[in-house]
């Protein structure tokens, strides 16, 4: 098992490092891979980046406990992906290419002709704060995974994960992240198709028998609300469905739209992306339920998938499963690492110093920043700093509410002012933090109030400040879709 796992690590490292040969020695090359990515790489890397270790650990664990009812997440994710790829992506891509936009923060600055760079600074700070916490949590998941599966030292596993990713990302920049994400995504996809299909049809007697066994263990596994009734059931269903609507506006996904080769790439990529999320959500759910049938008394349901592969399969296959879990963790970690680096070493640096930097300077500063970020995320994970991990609870909703409504309004209307944009970003983050920290969260999923308040504040503040705004850079010609 160890050999298979190390083959995976070394192969990914080599792919990552060699990516450096194919990029120009410029900021656009380092942070956007020269905007050269085709359909498959764009779609699979977007999916792999979005699907963290949570797919194999958290989602499977939730299905282990709550069964089929967690599938309510799927329609929400399909709608979220659909909107992201057809509504947000084409316009963002077109505007990005036309105006040489380097990141989501850079987009907001250029869209609102913000000479003060306040928009860029606020957007970058939101990205840095949430992503550093996210990165540390991914490393923690990596440490736990090798601890459970390989009986490896937890700290060692965590450092190993960070070192490999930082190692190739420092050298190959965004292209290395994209190419490794692509390979990691294919590994995840293969495992998530083969494993559940094999188990259901060859080990558990087929689809009907699988459900009969699950319902015999716990009848609630086969129900649509896991026993919840009335308002509790409605709240649960809405929470699951709305979860997926947080996809549009996530900076690490939006970046894929800026770096796609052309609009046709994005259009074809939409199908692959929706197939991807359907397989991810369906398979992780089935993995949890089949784990409940085979190991009904697991102490920690989150480790149902590693436990199954470890207990039931040959060590070589268990090693591939471990590689797939690591792939999910590393692909998310690497995307967040490169984006956080860009937010600090390019966006914040330029906005705060108001200076121009040569390509060589930016790349050098970026590489140093990336190593430091890797060290910081590793230290947070090693020292188990709980206040930072608390931020992960807010990260998904915070990023979606800060950027989603503003991105939509900025792409499709000219009614938003710079002040309105600032109000929308800040209120999105604050409402999420306040809502999640109060009992209100038990009644309404946090994205609902955050989206509503952020949108309202964007519109109200924009209306109030419209006359003050000297001149807003309007989106050029109507995108050709």
């Amino acid at each position, binding site marked *: 098992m160890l050999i298979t796992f190390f083959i995976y690590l070394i192969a990914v490292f080599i792919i990552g490092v060699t990516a450096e040969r194919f990029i120009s020695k410029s900021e656009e090359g380092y942070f956007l891979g020269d905007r050269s990515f085709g359909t498959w790489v764009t779609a699979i890397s977007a999916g792999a980046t979005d699907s963290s270790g949570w797919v194999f650990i958290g989602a499977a664990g939730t299905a282990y406990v709550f069964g*089929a009812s967690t*599938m309510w997440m*799927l*329609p929400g994710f*399909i709608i979220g*992906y*659909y909107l992201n*790829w*057809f509504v947000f992506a084409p316009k963002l891509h077109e505007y990005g290419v036309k105006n040489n936009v380097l990141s989501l923060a850079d987009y907001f600055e250029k869209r609102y002709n913000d000479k003060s760079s306040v928009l860029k600074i606020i957007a970058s700070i939101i990205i840095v704060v949430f992503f550093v916490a996210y990165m540390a949590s991914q490393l923690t998941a990596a440490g736990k995974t090798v601890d459970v599966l390989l009986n490896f030292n937890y700290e060692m596993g965590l450092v190993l994960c960070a070192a490999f990713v930082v190692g190739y990302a420092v050298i190959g920049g965004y292209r290395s992240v994209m190419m490794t994400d692509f390979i990691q995504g294919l590994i995840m996809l293969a495992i998530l198709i083969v494993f559940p299909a094999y188990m259901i049809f060859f080990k558990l007697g087929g*689809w*009907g028998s699988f*459900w*009969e066994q699950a*319902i015999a263990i716990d009848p609630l596994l*086969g*129900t*649509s609300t896991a026993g919840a009734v009335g308002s509790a059931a409605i709240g649960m269903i809405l929470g699951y469905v709305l979860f997926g609507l947080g996809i549009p506006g996530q900076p690490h996904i939006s970046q894929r739209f800026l770096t796609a080769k052309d*609009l*046709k790439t994005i*259009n*074809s990529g*939409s*199908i692959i992306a*929706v*197939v991807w999320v*359907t397989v991810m959500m*369906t398979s992780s759910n*089935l993995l949890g339920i089949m784990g409940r049938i085979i190991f009904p008394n697991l102490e920690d349901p989150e480790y149902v998938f590693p436990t199954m592969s470890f207990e039931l399969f040959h060590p070589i296959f268990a090693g591939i499963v471990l590689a797939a879990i690591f792939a999910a963790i590393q692909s998310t970690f690497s995307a967040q690492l490169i984006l956080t680096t860009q937010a600090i070493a390019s966006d914040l640096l330029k906005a705060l110093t108001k200076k121009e930097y040569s390509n060589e300077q930016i790349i050098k500063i970026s590489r140093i920043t990336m190593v430091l970020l890797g060290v910081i995320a590793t230290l947070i994970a090693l020292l188990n700093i709980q206040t930072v991990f608390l931020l992960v609870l807010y990260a998904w909703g915070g990023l979606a509410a800060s950027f989603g409504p503003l991105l939509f309004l900025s792409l499709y209307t000219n009614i938003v002012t710079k002040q309105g944009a600032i109000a929308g970003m800040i209120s999105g983050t604050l409402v999420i933090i306040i809502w999640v920290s109060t009992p209100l969260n038990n009644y309404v999923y946090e994205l609902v109030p955050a989206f509503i308040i952020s949108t309202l504040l964007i519109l109200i503040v924009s209306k109030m400040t419209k006359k003050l705004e000297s001149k807003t850079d309007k989106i050029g010609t109507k995108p*050709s*879709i």
Partner: protein
Amino acid sequence: MGNINSFIWIFYVVIPIVGIVITATTAMFVKNKYENK
């Protein structure tokens, strides 16, 4: 098979197929628009 609730078919078969078909149809429609330009 008869014991399986109908929503299980909706969750695991209908929603995935409908989602993929709607996406593919939209992509085809958008592609035609690109080509007709």
